């Protein structure tokens, strides 16, 4: 008589633990998703040339000479282009930036 009852309570505990674990995962997943959406959106909102400069610099890892050749501008123009892009991103992503600067 005792054995089945113990098994039942164990099963019940497992189910409860599963439900309790799932919540933070979903929340974290949603936070991550929102975060990435914000970053993506901020990049997409940049003026085209600034966006191109950021993508080539950050994700293609090209050097300044190569990027300025592709974008047909001088290296100093590229540097100010990147600076303005980062300034815009800094403002657009202010909540996320403030959060990570504090930590």
């Amino acid at each position: 008589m005792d054995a089945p009852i113990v098994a039942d309570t164990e099963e019940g505990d497992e189910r409860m633990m599963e439900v309790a674990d799932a919540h933070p995962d979903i929340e974290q997943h949603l936070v991550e998703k929102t975060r990435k959406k914000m970053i993506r959106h901020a990049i997409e909102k940049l003026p085209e040339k600034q966006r191109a400069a950021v993508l080539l610099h950050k994700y293609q890892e090209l050097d300044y000479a190569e990027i300025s050749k592709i974008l047909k501008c001088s290296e100093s123009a590229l540097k100010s282009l990147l600076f303005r892009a980062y300034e815009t991103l800094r403002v657009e992503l202010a909540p996320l930036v403030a959060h990570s600067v504090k930590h």
Partner: protein
Amino acid sequence: MSCEKMETRILAYMDGRLKENERAEAEKHLAGCAACRLRVNEFRAVNDLLDELPAIEPSGAFNARVHALVAAEPQKRSSWLTWLAPSPRIAFVASMLLLATVWVGTQAPPPPIATQDLPVVESTDYDVISSFAPLSDLSQAPDDDADDSDAPQQPQQM
């Protein structure tokens, strides 16, 4: 260094692409300028945020435009290159032909060696001819013209 100058160098500073003296200047400025220091920290945070999108897919249109720009850039150079070698296969065949020509060229020498030996043969031939049997023997075996050395012996065996 002024804050304006720092602005133009801030990304190169973050990338570690400043020259040694420029980096020293930037660090000196940052040590005394809280505003620029904050900006560097915030730009680093932006950089980290951009890192969160490792698999960022630039839109197809953007990709196409960049590829078009890149493709347009070295066209002058590639045009004569493509004329020179229209396809790797043709280039390969051409180089194989060249190799074959060189190989044949290096294989050619053996014939000259043979002709160098010839004078020796000629001199022995001369000896053979000089020790030839008299005309009377030849008339007995007119069919054995080709076999010079056997010619004098055959009549004796007969």
